[in-house]
């Protein structure tokens, strides 16, 4: 819920900036305006922030997209994460790297002179990671004997997972070529290898998993810089 509030707040600020810039751009309709094409590179701000704020998280993600045609972008993310999951009776850590490849479509019809993005996109994602069972309590229906808590760590290396993502979000040009963005991701797992007699409670890039479900969710706040390569008229 806290995350939701933070994200709402951030999104509001982002759209406010955007609204201001809308107001400042007027009467340019008659000018033939050229749009920038290039490579946009950046990072996911939420991951270093979470690394600072949360004891059991460490992560970094580099993002990039390349505008290939009008509203279409090739997009990729590459990252490394260490995620801890603590449930009432079990705790585990997932550690590893991931890559996401796909494309974005800009559904936003910009005013002349503006190059903001409200996009939807698809990704194919792949992760290699380790899953460490840190501690668990054997479940029994009787409290007569003291709880049997078994402490690890029991690490399984060399695990892999793949999934597809639906991404929706926005990127707002705050300063010239500097973009601040936010997006949410809905993920559906395709394959995964699991530790024997255990499960993947979290997967780097996928976030926590849900029992009996192939779906996962995620969000990012991005800061990126557009390296303009050429300009092309908007028709």
């Amino acid at each position, binding site marked *: 819920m806290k995350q939701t509030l933070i994200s709402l707040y951030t999104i509001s600020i982002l*759209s406010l900036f955007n609204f201001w810039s809308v107001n400042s751009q007027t009467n340019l309709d008659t000018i033939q305006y050229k749009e920038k094409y290039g490579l946009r590179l950046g990072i996911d701000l939420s991951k270093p922030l979470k690394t600072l704020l949360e004891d059991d998280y460490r992560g970094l993600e580099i993002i990039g997209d390349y505008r290939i045609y009008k509203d279409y972008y090739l997009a990729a993310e590459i990252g490394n994460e260490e995620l801890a999951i603590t449930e009432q009776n079990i705790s585990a850590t997932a550690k590893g790297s991931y890559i996401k490849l796909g494309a974005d479509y800009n559904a936003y019809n910009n005013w002349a002179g503006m190059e903001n993005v409200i996009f939807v996109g698809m990704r194919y994602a792949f992760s290699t990671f380790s899953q460490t069972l840190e501690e668990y309590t*054997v479940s029994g229906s009787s409290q*007569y*004997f003291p709880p049997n808590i078994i402490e690890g760590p029991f690490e399984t290396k060399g695990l892999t997972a793949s999934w597809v993502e639906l991404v929706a979000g*926005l990127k707002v040009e705050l300063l010239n070529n500097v973009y601040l963005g936010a997006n*949410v991701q809905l993920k559906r797992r395709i394959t995964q290898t699991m530790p024997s*007699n255990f*499960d993947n409670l979290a997967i780097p890039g996928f976030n926590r998993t849900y*029992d009996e479900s192939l779906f996962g*969710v995620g969000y990012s706040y991005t800061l990126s810089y557009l390296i303009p390569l050429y300009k092309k008229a908007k028709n």
Partner: protein
Amino acid sequence: MLRKKIKEFDLKIMGVGLIFLALINFSCQRDDICPESTPITPLLRVSFFDFENPEIPKPPTNLRVKAADMDSIFLNRVNISEISIPLKTDVDFTEYEFILNAQIITEGDSVSNSNTDKIRFTYARNEIYINRACSYKVNYIDLRVAPQPLEEDTVRWIKNIVVEEENTENETNTHILIYH
């Protein structure tokens, strides 16, 4: 002009709204509570029968059940022909005292005709992952029973013990039959 601007802004609000909705939806998590219907570590089901008439269930009189190394009592002065007792999940054996004609604990010095039999249950443990909410359960395999040596001048009230199910994976079947 203004109309177009409003339309653009509407689209933006809609986008933000969609993102917000998506976040709300997934902040509720359902699979963090272990449901009672999920089979976890089973209790050992023990049934008492008449030694003379092995078909007839016979509840022991005022039976007290406690683990030999525990101070607390698991069952006190019950008169039922079937009990379910937990086995330890951290070691391969559990010793229980079955006390027939147990006295009310506060009676202190009163003449006691209680009769204690000690039984050692030995087994191998098989830990099985259930899910994130229920963690692991233990199934006991190769269950064996051994009556432990008696204190002097007492008589065993348990005449015979039969292991009905060597592997305890559920609580639907009786695992141990005790004849007395």
